[in-house]
Structures are given as structure tokens and as C-alpha cells.
């Protein structure tokens, strides 16, 4: 029977549910980028080109101008340029976009907003399509964990992590106020005004307020064509989005430290266009809609006491609301679904670091988190989850050799409204070891390796979602082994000015993978620990800076090879098949050129052939896709010291018709114009 629509819509709906939780903290923002804790500030005007401290774990960063030049709407679009990353994209401005690092699964990726993890207790994945680039200063991806020990326990707690770092106020000596107004418009009926105001009260406190509104009809044409067969062009509809984002923050400086406080608010309404499947043309209208409201407040304090001891405290409260409506009065084919979900999260983290010797540090951090989920669904379990994390870590740091080891303890206790509905308590110990060696004193070459074992808890949906949830689930474990090398060199003369190359090879195992599986018919699903995946891969990235007379060119290349094989059941006909949506080959090229006030950027993304099921049959084969995007911008300076940046973008120049997810067509060629006025 057709609880069908219900359950499936909800699986889809709920993937969005926790998605816009955003948290904020000052945290160890600085150390995000440097293991040596040296202060290395990223300002809007600093290019990433120059030397960075080499990361002990594989890490990739897009920041500053390089990030601005990419034709990207959201954080998800930017992450596509990293190696070892797959983005699942349901298409359009409003379509869900989640990130998967090294094929271990979206729910193994910790997503951090200004250094603190975004909550995802309900469904364990974050929609990166909702994070605006408007205020974004840097995006980094780490495999394993950030190679820093002075951090919250949560930073140790995922298999891979994405760090989003927003702009912090920067004033030149004479200014006390920064004002920036911007407006974007283009294809899909998009209008996107935004404003940012920063104020320096005194040398102790800065403030920042920003707001943004986004509207898009989400409409675009797409085609499906078969050789000697049908050729149809349709319009994607009901993909409209209307969203408001507002943020306000205070940034404080104290002796030997700093603090930060922020409030974030996001409110949106969007339509779901649904899967593009066969239907008699024009007969049915898909009108499913979703409303989200996300609010959080967060504070962070960091202080050094003497030369040896440092303390960091983070605290947060978050509230998320989701309303999903599928109404047969609008769409006769659908089932009536009208559900509301409320999530709350409280979080407190304390991290301590002790510098025992100049070359030896140790840290201890403890986090406590409380999550609640309520809903007006029938037979809802009303789960509450208490999570306690403790991490002990140590690092030794010699000139040519570095090593870190950490041990994470996790305790989880769930409570439900009805006795017996809750899963049992869990406690787990998981280790990580990281090492780096520089074989040559005067050569920028580092060899690195890490081992990490970590798990993800079943989400509240996995365990308690009415009908689907399964409280008997075990956690899903990943084990990672990585070896790699980084090499870089600067050149004073010639065309090439800097080269940086990194390559890593890895082997990952995912055990007890939690998957949704139908039970007695395909409209009755449940969650199961079923699946074992082995991933062997190579990630490579290179960055080259060129100077052709007055033209500075920056080139960024990334390439990924992955064999991600389902090795669940040796008896299965499909044993060893490449897991769904993971291409063997993928990569990207970005070429940016700067000449005076002009910026030209070309970017190319390639995703090789892959399969939509672990049954790697012709029927499940998905063609490669590759898109080329081009943008041109000019910075115009006015006498009153304000400046206007005008950008014109063309995306998917060759109008390729492709899908990232089966039955979710992506847009063809589209345009955008951006105006950015800084006062």
C-alpha cells in the first residue's frame, strides 16, 4: 500500500530537516588553517597564494579572492572543486546539495560553521546549498580531522570535515564603519539583495550585521534524448525558493584572547519539483512545499593563561523548525502530508591545552550536547539525545617531524516519551594517529600519514522515525588509512611563480552501513545495518601561479580516482560493484586571470561515468558530465573611496543536459549578474 509517498517524501523531506542548522563560534578559527598555531589571518585582501603551513592531514582550502572569483551560488558549488569530494545535487537553486568525502557517506561529514559543528541530530546531513557565499571567507575540507589538538571534542568526531569560515570585521586605520551592498540577478528568475554593516565601537569590540534575501522561481528547461528515440524538453517547476538570512555578531578582544557572540536566523519557503518521471504531459502538478526556520545563538571565548595553559569555551543554543506540506487539493495524485518538526539543541564545550615543552603539547576537551525532536506525526517517539564527548590528545612538534595522537570517548543516551522505545546507551572509544615528516631541510616536501577510526551514531530519524526507524541499529564505523605527500616551491623569476602539489592515497572501510531498505513491500521502509564498503582512492591537487607580464594567472587542478566497492555479501551477483553515484574518475580545473581591475575566471568540472546502483549494469549506467563556467568582473573605484564590483557569469556554457542524481535534471546554460558596492 501506499504509505509510500508518505514515507518517501519524508525521507526526502527530512534530509532537509536538519539541514540549515547553523552554529557559530569563534573557536579556533585561526588554527583551522595552521597547525603551528601561528596567527595567520585571512583577510579579504590576502590571497591564499603565499605559503601556508603544510597540513599534516590532507586539507584543501578555497579562500579570499580565489573563492570570490568562482561562479558559485552556494558553498556546495564551491566544494565541487576539491578532490576526494562528491556532491549530491538534486538540481536548481533550491535542490538539496550534500557533500560526501571519500565515499564514506554524507553522514560521516562534520560540517562546521565558524569552527563549531552544525547540528544534524535528526537526519545527519547538512544541505550546503543553503549556505550563501555572500559572507563566506574561506571553505576548507579536511580528511580525518583538523590536525590541531586545541579544539573541541567534536572536531575529533567525524571521518571528514568541511569548515566554513565567515568574514570577520576588518577596518583600515581610519575607518570605523564598513558598509557593503550587493545585488545578484539572472536566470531562474533570481533576485538576491544583501547588505553588510560592520562597526568598530572601540579597540576592544567590533560588531557585524548582515542580511540577505533570495528569491528564485527555480524554473529551467531540461531535455531527455535517446538515440533514434524520444526527444523531450520540459520545464522544471515548483522549484521556487524564498529565503531570508540575517546574522549579527560581536567580536571582542581581551588580554591574551578573544571572544565572539553571534545570532543567526534563516527562514525559507520552497517547493519540491520531485523526481522527473514519466507522466501524461500536463496532467498533474507537483505542489509539495516546505518551510524552514532556523535560529541559533552562539558564543565563544578563548584565552591564554601564562605561557603554558590555554582555555577555550564554546556554547550554543539552536532551534529548528520544519513544516512539510503535500496537499491533494493542489496535486490530486499525492497523499495528504502536513507535518511539523521542532528540534532544539544545547551545546557546551570546554577545551584545555597545556604546553609541556616547546615541542610537546597535550590537550583535554569535553563537550556536552542535548538534542530534542518533536513532531505532530502519528506515533511519534519524541526522542531526546544526550551526547557527551571527551577527547584527550597530544602533539609533538619538531622541525622535521610532527606527530599527533588523540583518543575520543563518546557516550550517548537516548530517551523517548514511551518506555521501551529508546535505543540502548552507547559508549565508544575511537583513536586517531597523525604523522608528518620533512625529508629535506630546504625543500618544501612533506610526507604524511594518518590512521583514524570513528563512527557515526544512527540519527534520530534512523532510530525513531515513525514506521521507518529501527531502535536496534548499531553505529556505522569507518576506518581510514592515508599516506601522502605535499610539495611546493616559489620562483622569483619566470612565468611560473609558485607550484604546490599534493597527492594522497587512501584505504577506507565502512562497516555496518546504515541503509534504508523496504520491508514487505516497497512502500514500507526501515533502517538496517547492512553493508560493508571498501574504498581505495587517490586524491591529487595542484596549484600553479603564473605571471605573464602584468597578468597574474592562478591555476588549480584536482583529480580523484576512487574504487568504492560494495563488499557486503560475497554471494551476491553484485558483490564488488562500485557504490551508487561514485565515479571512478573526477576532477576540476580552475583558471583565474587578474589584470589591473579585471578578473577572468574559467572553471571546469568533470564527473566520470558511474552507476546509479551497486548493480553495475547498462540500465544503471550514468554518463559522464562536465560543465564549463566563465565569469568576468571588474572592480570600479570611486573617488569617495567606495568601490563597485560588477560580475557577469555564464554557467554550463555548452548547455550540457545532465543529472547528478537519477531523475533530477540539472540546469543547462544560465547567466548571472552581480553588483557589489563597498562603502
Amino acid at each position: 500500500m501506499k504509505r509510500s509517498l508518505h514515507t518517501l517524501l519524508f525521507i526526502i523531506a527530512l534530509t532537509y530537516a536538519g539541514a540549515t542548522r547553523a552554529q557559530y563560534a569563534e573557536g579556533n578559527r585561526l588554527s583551522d588553517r595552521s597547525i603551528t598555531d601561528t596567527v595567520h589571518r585571512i583577510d579579504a585582501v590576502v590571497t591564499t597564494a603565499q605559503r601556508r603551513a603544510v597540513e599534516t592531514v590532507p586539507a584543501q582550502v578555497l579562500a579570499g579572492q580565489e573563492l570570490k572569483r568562482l561562479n558559485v551560488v552556494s558553498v556546495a558549488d564551491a566544494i565541487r572543486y576539491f578532490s576526494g569530494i562528491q556532491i549530491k545535487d538534486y538540481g536548481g537553486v533550491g535542490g538539496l546539495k550534500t557533500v560526501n568525502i571519500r565515499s564514506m557517506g554524507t553522514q560521516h561529514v562534520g560540517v562546521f560553521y565558524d569552527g563549531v559543528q552544525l547540528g544534524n541530530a535528526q537526519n545527519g546531513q547538512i544541505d550546503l546549498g543553503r549556505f550563501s557565499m555572500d559572507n563566506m571567507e574561506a571553505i576548507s575540507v579536511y580528511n580525518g580531522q583538523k590536525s590541531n589538538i586545541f579544539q573541541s571534542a567534536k572536531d575529533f568526531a567525524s571521518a571528514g570535515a568541511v569548515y566554513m569560515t565567515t568574514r570577520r570585521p576588518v577596518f583600515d586605520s581610519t575607518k570605523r564603519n564598513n558598509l557593503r551592498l550587493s545585488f545578484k540577478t539572472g536566470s531562474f528568475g533570481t533576485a538576491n539583495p544583501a547588505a553588510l554593516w560592520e562597526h568598530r565601537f572601540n579597540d576592544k569590540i567590533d560588531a557585524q550585521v548582515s542580511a540577505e534575501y533570495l528569491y528564485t522561481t527555480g524554473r529551467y528547461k531540461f531535455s531527455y534524448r535517446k538515440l533514434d528515440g524520444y526527444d523531450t524538453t520540459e520545464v522544471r517547476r515548483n522549484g521556487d525558493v524564498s529565503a531570508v538570512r540575517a546574522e549579527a555578531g560581536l567580536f571582542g578582544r581581551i588580554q591574551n584572547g578573544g571572544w565572539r557572540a553571534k545570532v543567526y536566523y534563516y527562514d525559507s519557503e520552497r517547493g519540491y519539483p520531485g523526481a522527473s518521471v514519466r507522466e501524461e504531459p500536463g496532467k498533474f502538478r507537483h505542489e509539495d512545499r516546505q518551510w524552514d526556520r532556523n535560529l541559533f545563538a552562539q558564543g565563544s571565548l578563548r584565552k591564554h593563561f601564562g605561557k603554558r595553559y590555554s582555555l577555550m569555551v564554546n556554547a550554543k543554543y539552536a532551534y529548528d523548525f520544519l513544516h512539510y506540506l503535500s496537499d491533494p487539493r493542489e496535486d490530486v495524485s499525492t497523499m495528504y502530508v502536513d507535518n511539523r518538526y521542532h528540534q532544539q539543541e544545547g551545546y557546551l564545550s570546554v577545551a584545555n591545552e597545556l604546553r609541556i615543552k616547546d615541542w610537546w603539547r597535550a590537550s583535554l576537551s569535553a563537550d556536552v550536547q542535548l538534542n530534542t525532536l518533536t513532531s505532530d506525526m502519528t506515533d511519534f517517539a519524541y526522542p531526546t539525545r544526550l551526547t557527551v564527548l571527551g577527547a584527550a590528545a597530544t602533539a609533538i612538534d619538531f622541525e622535521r617531524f610532527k606527530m599527533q595522537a588523540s583518543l575520543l570517548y563518546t557516550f550517548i543516551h537516548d530517551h523517548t516519551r514511551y518506555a521501551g522505545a529508546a535505543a540502548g546507551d552507547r559508549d565508544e572509544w575511537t583513536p586517531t594517529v597523525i604523522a608528518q615528516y620533512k625529508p629535506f631541510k630546504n625543500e618544501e616536501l612533506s610526507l604524511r600519514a594518518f590512521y583514524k577510526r570513528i563512527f557515526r551514531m544512527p540519527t534520530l530519524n534512523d532510530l525513531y522515525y515513525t514506521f521507518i526507524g529501527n531502535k536496534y541499529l548499531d553505529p556505522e564505523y569507518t576506518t581510514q588509512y592515508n599516506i601522502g605527500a605535499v610539495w611546493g616551491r616559489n620562483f622569483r623569476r619566470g612565468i611560473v611563480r609558485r607550484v604546490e602539489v599534493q597527492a594522497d592515497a587512501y584505504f577506507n572501510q565502512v562497516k555496518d552501513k546504515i541503509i534504508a531498505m523496504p520491508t514487505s513491500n516497497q512502500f514500507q521502509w526501515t533502517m538496517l545495518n547492512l553493508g560493508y564498503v571498501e574504498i581505495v582512492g587517490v586524491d591529487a591537487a595542484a596549484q600553479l601561479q603564473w605571471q605573464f607580464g602584468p597578468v597574474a594567472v592562478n591555476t588549480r587542478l584536482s583529480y580523484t580516482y576512487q574504487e568504492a566497492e560494495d563488499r557486503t555479501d560475497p554471494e551476491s551477483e553484485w558483490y564488488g560493484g562500485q557504490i551508487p553515484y561514485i565515479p571512478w574518475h573526477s576532477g576540476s580545473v580552475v583558471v583565474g586571470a587578474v589584470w589591473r581591475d579585471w578578473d577572468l575566471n574559467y572553471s571546469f568540472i568533470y564527473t566520470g561515468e558511474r552507476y546509479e546502483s551497486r548493480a553495475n549494469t547498462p540500465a544503471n549506467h550514468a554518463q559522464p558530465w562536465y560543465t564549463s563556467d566563465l565569469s568576468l568582473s571588474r572592480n570600479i573605484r570611486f573617488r569617495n573611496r567606495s568601490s563597485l564590483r560588477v560580475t557577469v557569469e555564464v554557467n554550463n556554457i555548452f548547455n550540457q543536459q545532465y543529472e547528478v542524481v537519477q531523475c533530477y535534471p540539472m540546469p543547462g546554460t544560465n547567466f548571472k549578474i552581480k553588483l557589489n558596492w563597498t562603502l
Partner: protein
Amino acid sequence: MKTFDKLLVISLLVLTLAGCREEYEPILPPDQTIVTYPDPMVGDVKGFFLLNEGNMGSNKATLDYFDYETGEYSCNIFPQRNPNVVKELGDVGNDLQVYGERLYAVINCSNLVEVMNLSTAEHIGAISIANCRYITFDKGFAYVSSYAGPVQIDPNARPGKVVKIDTATLSIVGECVVGYQPEEMAVVGDRLYVANSGGYRVPNYDTTVSVIDLATFTELKRIEVAINLHRLELDRYGYLWVSSRGDYYSKQSALYAIDTRTDQVATKLDLPVGNMTRLGDSLYVYSNAFDKQAQKHSISYAIVNLVSREVVDRHFIKDGTESQIVVPYGVAVNPETRDILVTDAGDYVTPGKLHCYNADGVRQWSVTTGDIPAHIAFTHRRLKPTTNTNPDQNDTNPYITSVFDYRPAVGQFVNELPKYEAGDTQEKMNAKVLAAIGNNARSQISLGGYGGYVVVGFDHTIPNVSGLRDFRVLGNAFYSGTASPTDPIGGSSEPGIIMVARDANGNGLPDDEWYEIAGSAHRDVKSEAFYPLAQKAGLDVAFYSDYQITYYRPASEPEVATENYIRWVDNKQKEGYMDKNEYHLQSYFPQWIDADSLVFSGSRLPQNGIDTSGKGTNFVLYKFGYGYADNDKNTADDASIDIDWAVDSEGKAVTLSGIDFIKIYSGVNQQNGWIGENSTEVCGVEDLHALGERIATR
């Protein structure tokens, strides 16, 4: 610096070489496999269609077809036959029925009923019905249950409906509101019974069966039964069997019988039901409830006797293979043979399986299907092969265009494949052979026991392309499961030796010199993977290049199974008899031939049939390496031949630029118990170059 340039170039090259896309994706041809022995004496049930649901939102509903006459299973036949139907069959196939000369598929999430020609599976029309579920027929009208009744003020209280369709015009002529989320329907006299589930109203499930008066098409009443009703089967005594799915928590699934004379519930059986089908007085039932704590399905099977109205058997799969089914998802029983078909949805996201069991519950064959194989409809029409409009290669026909001679040895399929009718001459039989295997008809002919042959020709010379295989001989070889993966491959390999000839004198007739394709056993019998097994089993494993056999016309034609039926003598001091078996009682001696004996000569292959059961129940016919007809699966590379393998009568390799004629003769002389003699079957020959297929030679 150069290094960096190189790096850049290499990186770009990798990206470029890693693969480009086709602007237009090809339409996938069906995946065809022979899965069992042919049944030339098939009755009215010629085959069946199977609808695979496909996962919701993936638009992967597919249609498969099985043909009893050839034993061939074709996966996903719809796209090739309907290249212009946008997005193929659609999203989630929920029901499949045959009515008249049409096939109806209810495609739930595409909100339509696809109507196809029964003989061709070609699209006739589609009827748009929101959230349609099941279909049944009566007096020229189709009735489709749908969840999408009129919307009420309370959108949660939306009833379902039954939509009435005139099958002549495929137009909707009426609608009748019923209970919540109606499922299966059954026509009883002039009334239609509808099982209401209420599945959208958890926990307030519907509990009723709606009764509709077909004359007025209005709901007469609702019969209270139990929660969450689903399946309906009417028996021969006026009882309508109804399954309740329970609530998946505390209320168990159960089976009820409504006496349609009183419309009262007459019987309740505490038997969980996932699906059921009726044949005669037996109701075949399975259940696939899910146990979350154990994280697995709890599966049960049963047969309910509809006379005594009780469970008489807890298993209808009797050979111990029941446990190999992960999630039973569809069940059907062939009304003629009583063969039981059970589908396995497996993990729902990869292709499923279909298993066929005979009436005694012993597995006959299994095949891989589409995703979530579910709904089976038997057909009284053979599905016609596609009229292959191959756009390639300047109008050459890649298939057989003429048959010069057909002279089978004696055999159990002789006079049946193709069918001999009184008065048929050699010319008439040649024409029947052409109709069966020419022009991609893909039916089949049997060459009988050792020596029987067919000679075919083409409308062009098949070129010998260096390094590639040149033509494929289609047969009906298939693999059966072997005990261990290291065992030699076996199943039903009945190798025929292939000869080729050039039309050297240009007269268009095969009166030129023949060259034999030297297959693996021609080169070294000991290299055959099955050789040690065959030797151990005491088979005649010699290879002869100068073999001759004579078969003698039987003195009389017995009408029952007979041992020592047809006598044969060879030139290696051996003789024996062919038996007549109980499955094929026609004459085994070609009826259009007057001679009292048949003499065949040529090479002879080692015997390859081994009784692996040791008691005469399971014969495995092992595959030879390569180079023979009807030896490997049609989809395998070794069904194809490289003309470079041809040798002359001395056994020396010859170089031929191309060939015009092909002769195929049965290569093994062996009787294999109840499955009969080793006889090559031929289903066609394909010029690989004309088809644009490139298969590397060995």
C-alpha cells in the same frame, strides 16, 4: 619548469581521456538469456510477462518476457519496442494484466495505465489516472482502483475510487467512490468487490470491502472484514478470499473468506499473507513480514485448500531452495503446467530474481530480472520478435536469408522444431527453418542427435576481419548452477560443429569446398575443462575426425515411451539405441525423408553430459572451450566465431577473406537419461560486422 607544464598537460589529458559522453544515450536492447529447455509442444500458455516495479522515483518500471517455446527470458523489452514513448514504462509498476489482445500495466507513480499490443508489446495508449493501483476486467470494461477520490474538506478523509474504462476507446466512462486507499478488486457475477486498505490513515486503517453494482456502477455496501485489506481471490465455491496486512505492529496479517452469497465473513485463517494466487482449489500464499529486532524478513509459505478451507501445506518449494529467496515478492502458477513462479525482490535496489518450480516444488530454473520483480501475467500469444530495423551498414541483412538444406538426425525435437505437417517436402521444411531462424526471428530448430545438420546462406559475404570474431551462432545453451565456482561451467551445452564455405564458383549455391571451424576440442580434447570429470565418469572422450553414423528407421512407431526405439551403428565398432521419452511422443525420425536409414559423417566431439546426481536426475552438459554452436550462452563472447579458425580437410589452417555459407551439425553422440540425446539447437546466425559489434578474437 617543464615538469609543471607536463603535469598540467597530463592532468588535462587524464580528464579528457577518462571519458566523454554521448550526446544521445542509446536505447537499451533487451537482455536475452536462454534459461531452460525449449518446449515445442507448448500449450495455450505461450509465455508470460513480468512487470518489475522499480524503485519509487527512479522511473525504472520494466517489462520482461519469457517464451516457453524457446526457453528464452528477455529482460526489459519495452524501450526497444517503444523508442518514442517518453521516459519508457514509467515509475513503479503496480499491476499487470492481459485482457483480449492487449496487455495492461498499471504504473502507480506515473499515474497512468499503459496499454500495449499483446503480440508486440507496442504502445497503444495510456490512460491517465492519479495514484492508480490495480486493474481488473469485465465485459469489455476495465476497472482501475485509485487512491485519488474526491478531495474532502478534511484532506485526511479522502476516499478512493474505482475508475471504469471502455477498453474499445480507452476512455474513462465512469467513477465510483469506495473506501480509503482501495487495492485489489474481483468481479463476482454482476458485482465488483474492492479491498479498502486505508493505508494513508494510519492508525485509522479501513476495514471494509466495498461492493459495487456493475450495472449502475454505484457502491451497494461495505462488508466489515479487518484492517488494512489488500489481496482478493475468488474461489470456485463463491468464497472471496481477502488478505489483511495487519498494522505491522501488534495486529497480525490474516486471511479471511467472504461468502459472496451472504456477503458475510465465513472463515478466518491466522495465516499471514503478503501475496497469494489461486489455481484450482489451491491458494498459494507467502508472507514476508519484517522483524526489526532480528533485522530480517520472517518469511513463510503455505498452500490453502479451498475446499477444506485450511492450510494443507506449509511449503510449496520442496527441494530445499526456499532459503535462497531473500524477499518473495510475486507469485503465479502456470494454469497448464502448474509450474510455480516466485519472484525475489532481494534488496530492492538491484535486479531481482525469478525462480520457476515444477508442480512438485523442485526448482527448474532461475533468472535475473529487473528491479523488484513483482507482477506476472501469462499470455496465450507468443511475443513477436522485434522487426529489427538496423540502421547500420548499407542495407545488408545481418541475419540468415536462405536455408539450403535441413537434415536433422533422429531426435526428440525432430518433427517438432520445426513442426512437420503431413505432406511437407524438403523444400517446405527448409522454408519452415528459414521462418524460424532467418531474419532475426530467433525461434529455434533442432538438429537432432549426432550428425544432423542445416545449411544456411546470407544476402552478402560475411567478411573475415582480422583480430575480430566475425559471426555468432545463436543457440539455447545455458548454465546451471555449479556446486563450486571452481567447477567447470556446465548446464545445457549441446555443441554443433560449424563449417563455412565461400561461393567460389559464384553460382549462389553451397556446392563449394567446405572448411571446418576448429574449436577447442578439435585442437586438444584434453584442454577441455570438463575432460577429467568426463573421463572419470567413463564417457567416450575421444575426438574423431572421420566419424560416421547410420540411424535406422524404426519398424513401428510406438505411442508411449519406449526403450531401444531407434538403432544406430557407427564406424568405431559401436552401436546403440535412442529411446523415446515420455515428454516427446512424436516420431523421432524425420518424416519428410523416405530413406530407411540416415547416414552422417564428420568430426565427432567427446561426450560432455554427466549425471552429477548419480541417480539419473541431474544431467549437466558441460561447456566446451570455444568454437562451437549452441555451446556457450548467446550473450557470451564464445557464442561467436572467428573465420580464421577454419581448417581444410587435412586440418590445416586456411585464410578466407569471407564466407557465404554456413553448415552446422550436431557434434556429440550421447544419450543423457531423461533429458534425452545431445542435440544442437540453432536460433539464428548474426554477421557481427553488419551489426557493428566488435568482439576480439581469442
